[in-house]
């Protein structure tokens, strides 16, 4: 292995695989060298013979490296075929991290849609562990069906440690006795001081857009509304060009952006000018 080649992955051992929902697994990975990362960063994960995909870290810095992976495509499908004891390749961490200074001393509203909870989890841990630096922390997490809900047991633990959690599903079944509907429909239940709060949002693109608009309408300034985007990526280091968004690359300039940055990009380069077609750019 060559240390000065950024494209060479390091081999990592899958220590544990936990099934979180019908198509989401949690992989605990052990690397030879110690790797440090920040909440919001991602790794390029390889399965040799299948390729590489950008995967965000779902564990906090105090935990072992963990990836929460949904089976959606070629590479993630291959990862789902692996078991504990198999090896994968990883390189990273890449990208910027969630800014924490915007939330210091303020209420925090975290909004997750589906697998969007995965990159937000290390952030939730940060707020729990350094609780005195922040005011109240609210978590709104939405999923499609009760079968898609992940981290539900952890949510109970987080609740015990002071996070105000609201879980909701779009399509409930008989077993579901909590909230139903879109996450944005439950914002009224959040008793945060919105004028003086920060928000972290991750999920599908339409949900991100709706949630950013909703918290902005309630008074959170645009620079304190933070989201993390995803895109097709081949390199992770700003060279392959696939994750473009106007003059920015999501891999190196992001993946974390503020609503303010995104709106400014949309204003300058117009609607329908990123990889994000109309929904993302219709602010």
């Amino acid at each position, binding site marked *: *292995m*060559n240390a*000065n*080649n*950024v*494209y*060479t*992955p390091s*081999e990592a051992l899958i220590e544990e695989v936990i099934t979180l929902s019908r198509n989401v697994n949690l992989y605990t990975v052990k690397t030879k060298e110690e790797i440090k990362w920040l909440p919001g960063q991602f790794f390029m994960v390889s399965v*040799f*013979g*299948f*390729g*590489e*995909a950008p995967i965000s870290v779902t564990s906090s810095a105090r935990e072992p490296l963990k990836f929460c992976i949904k089976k*959606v*495509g*070629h*590479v*993630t499908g291959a990862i789902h075929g692996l078991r504990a004891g198999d090896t994968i*390749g990883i390189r990273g961490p890449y990208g910027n991290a969630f800014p924490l200074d915007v939330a210091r001393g303020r209420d925090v509203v975290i909004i997750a849609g589906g697998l969007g909870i995965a990159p937000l989890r290390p952030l939730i841990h940060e707020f729990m562990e350094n609780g005195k630096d922040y005011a109240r922390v609210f978590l709104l997490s939405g999923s499609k069906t009760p079968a898609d809900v992940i981290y539900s047991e952890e949510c109970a633990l987080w609740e015990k440690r002071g996070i105000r959690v609201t879980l909701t599903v779009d399509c409930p079944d008989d077993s579901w006795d909590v909230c139903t509907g879109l996450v944005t429909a439950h914002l009224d239940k959040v008793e945060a001081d919105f004028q003086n709060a920060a928000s972290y949002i991750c999920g599908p693109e339409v949900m991100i857009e709706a949630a950013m608009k909703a918290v902005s309408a309630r008074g959170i300034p645009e620079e304190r509304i933070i989201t993390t985007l*995803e*895109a*097709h990526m*081949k*390199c992770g*280091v*700003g*060279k*392959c*060009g*696939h*994750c*473009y968004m*106007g*003059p920015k690359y999501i891999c*190196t300039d992001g993946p974390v952006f503020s609503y303010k940055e995104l709106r400014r990009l949309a204003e300058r*380069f*117009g609607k*329908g*000018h*990123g*990889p*994000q*077609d109309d929904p993302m750019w219709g602010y």
Partner: protein
Amino acid sequence: MKKNMPVPIKTEAVKEWVLDKNHLSYWLRQLRKDFELVAPLRERNDIVLKRIDRIHEIALDCPASIPSPKEFLFPQFEPMLTKGTDGISDLRDGSKRVIFGVRSCDVSAVNLLDKFYLSGIADPYYESRRKNTLFISLVCNVPDGTCFCAGLGTGPYLKTGYDIQLYDLGDRYLLQAGSKDAERLVGRHRFLMRKPSKTDHEDQYEAQASSKAMFAERISLEGARQMITDGKVADDFWQDVAERCFECGGCVYECPLCTCFSVIDRKYNAGPADEQVERSRLWDACMFKGFTGMAGGALPAEKRILRTKRWFYHKLIYYPETLGAFGCTGCGRCTITCPGKIDMASVVHRMGNEYSKG
């Protein structure tokens, strides 16, 4: 020197020599002993840049638009690494290469590619090839009808930023060495050359002036950039451009400044029970629908207008913003390639006609 004084930039004096044309092939033959020599040659009706085995085959009389030397720094297909039972091996190419006969526009393009690939997190494959490549460029005495480098300062001759630059002065070349590596290389064969005289410089001046006078048309990329940033260019304009796009990707492949790539893994058996995986990269094009395609099947840039507009914005707006120069050197290759006549020159020209007066 006082503290905080700006460090003066060393302006290296151009080292010049005159090389008789009769000595060119001897010189190249000597260079070939230490380097792989790449130059344009004719293959059937095409001109290609290839490794030269027979010096006399070099097509020095070819038009300016030879294929881009980008191929030798960022190949169309480049194996990156293999993974076998014994681990990962790095397949970086570090061959020493001299690329002879390329034009000023392409040397300008390489200077900008350097900025892109080597800034931030440097690309190790590009870096390794670039470190070992030296360009001997030829000043264009006769530009093609599609060339528009003169207005951009990227040609037909360069004042800085070249390794070795040759002016064709009829029976001899005026040779300029623009880097330390180039000086060393020329220094080894100084016995073939002489110091330039006043006549040589007069002929050089004449070549510069006559070449510049031959450019058919000036294309103002700066004018286009301003029209776009002033918000004059409506989406209707880009819709018209998009409707003419065949999505062939020709502009991207021919462009010396298009840098995007995709990565693929391929499995093969190196021996019994020894499965190897080779990871390679290959050119990709933002003109293709699948370029931004996500794992779940979503195609963020499915509409053609998003892709064609992106290409022009990248070269006219984002390149100057991020790297300080247009992502176009005026080589005119897209003009030759594009079947829809929506190449850089045509689009900028049309933009000027439609919007410059309003």
